[in-house]
């Protein structure tokens, strides 16, 4: 039996120690790295390509979910979490398993049995389907609020607070996100952002545009019966007739 490579991403040392101690009972599992934040974890996973990862949800810099969103290599995932209703629902169907802290040795063993089963079927088939895609999908279909957006740009990871977004523009299969610091391309749909951004602040003003209403400088008429938003950063955003209706309701004019 070849040994399986494991990476632990967890910000608390005692929690990492516990996992390593429990893992001692499974000699075929080899811990090739442990990281105390999402950033370093992400880099290591992409480089070292482990078979499975233990992933905490709440972590500095990048949460477990945000990490999955930009991960290239797709290992099997066992989540470890303390208390997170949404996360639990997401894991129930899609992760190999999730461990609610604190967890017993027996519970850990169960998770390892599931993991081994998943790894074996993966070896058998040419390319096993990972649960990660499903977890991403689960979030896309939920009504969970988005507070930050994680973007990969020229090899670097950027974490943008949604409040810093001035507006979004549809570009085929991508969405261009405009902030004061620059623009970022994200593979995602407009519907996704419309659904997960705070609709008190972000309004779909056009089929291809979502605007942050706190960034509007003024609204000007544009050609026939159309309007255009002039944003504080000087950018112009077209407004459709429907968009104008929604804007009127939001801004109360």
């Amino acid at each position: 039996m070849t040994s399986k490579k494991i990476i632990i991403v967890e910000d608390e040392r005692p929690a990492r120690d516990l996992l390593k101690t429990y893992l001692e009972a499974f000699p075929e599992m080899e811990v090739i790295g442990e990281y105390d934040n999402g950033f370093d974890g992400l880099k290591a996973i992409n480089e070292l390509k482990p078979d499975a990862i233990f992933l905490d949800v709440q972590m500095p810099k990048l949460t477990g979910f945000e990490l999955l969103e930009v991960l290239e290599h797709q290992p099997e995932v066992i989540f470890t979490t303390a208390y997170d209703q949404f996360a639990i629902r997401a894991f129930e169907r899609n992760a190999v398993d999730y461990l609610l802290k604190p967890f017993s040795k027996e519970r850990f063993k169960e998770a390892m049995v599931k993991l081994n089963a998943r790894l074996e079927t993966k070896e058998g088939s040419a390319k096993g389907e990972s649960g990660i895609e499903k977890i991403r999908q689960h979030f896309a279909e939920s009504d969970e609020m988005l507070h930050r957006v994680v973007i990969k740009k020229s090899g670097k990871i950027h974490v943008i607070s949604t409040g810093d977004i001035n507006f979004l523009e549809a570009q085929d299969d991508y969405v261009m996100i405009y902030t004061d610091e620059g623009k970022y391309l994200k593979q995602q749909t407009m519907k996704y952002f419309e659904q997960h951004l705070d609709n008190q602040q972000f309004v779909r003003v056009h089929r291809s545009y979502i605007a942050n209403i706190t960034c509007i400088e003024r609204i000007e008429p544009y050609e026939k019966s159309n309007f255009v938003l002039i944003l504080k950063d000087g950018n112009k955003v077209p407004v459709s007739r429907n968009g104008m209706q929604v804007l009127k309701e939001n801004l109360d004019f």
Partner: protein
Amino acid sequence: MSHPITGNRRSILIYSLVWLMVAATQGILYLYVFNFSIPVVVTDALFSSLLFGFMGLLAWYPTRYIPFHRQSPFYSISAHVVAGVVVMGSWVLLSIGMLNAIFSTQVEYIEFLNQTVAWRAMLGGLIYLVLVLIYYLVSNNQKLQERSQQEERLKGMVRDAELNMLKSQINPHFLFNSLNSISSLTMSNPDEAREMIIRLSDFLRYSLKHRENEYVPLGEELGRMKDYLAIEKVRFGEKLLYEFEVDKACEEFPVPTMIFQPLFENAIRHSVYESVDPVSIKFSCVPDDWHMKAVISNDFDPAIPIRKGTGVGLQNVRQRIALAYKENGTVQWSGNDGVFSVTILFPRIFI
């Protein structure tokens, strides 16, 4: 407070109908008992009853601006007498004068009119008095309603504050992660595990006390906050540094229980939870002539996007301080140069 009659359409309608009926009764009386001609009857009814109806509306204003409970009864009564004499006097002079001028040729009517002046004035005075009483009734009723509405609002605010307080007590993340750390320590370091269990128990016991909404010496409150920080220190190790600088004079000063908990929790959440570098949390308390000044500060990385839900803890603390000390206590916060700090001023004399 708006005028109880002109303030809404329905009262205007009812009031007008009442006076139209009074005018009609007067008219019928004059027509069939005293046998005056129709123009005389209609004009008299118009000038006495309907004019009175209009003047009666004015009686509201003295009622509105002479509140009985705030002035001496003598002052209020004389003010009402003066107002009443002015209103009724104008009414009598206006109606009698006009009727006299219009029907100066009808001797019989003029004679009748002048004989009834005293009666009219008396009857007018009586009705005026009744109107004033009704107005008082209405305005008191309105005030009562407003007061009970305000009370409801206040009660709601207090309830919300209390509810938020309870909610903010212990973060489940903290609790379960601490238990997980203990679970880990039982294998690697049982002594430390036991210490941590004791700390966690002390802290939880203290947080339950919080429901009673009582005051404790600052020293005790800080003791439990140190338990809290020590537990977090086990989880985060060297990443968390903290120091306390408390003036001796502050130790015994009574503070609301758990008042600092949301602030320490915030400090940890926005610094330690979000950072990979060591962060330090500082607490200081110094007295001045009027206040105890407590300051909690922590490092934070301004580059890290702030998660939503921030500010609930701070608002809670501000609300509790306002409930406890009214305007004598203040909570202020500021964040610049990578240091976030919250300052609470407790009034030294407050009971």
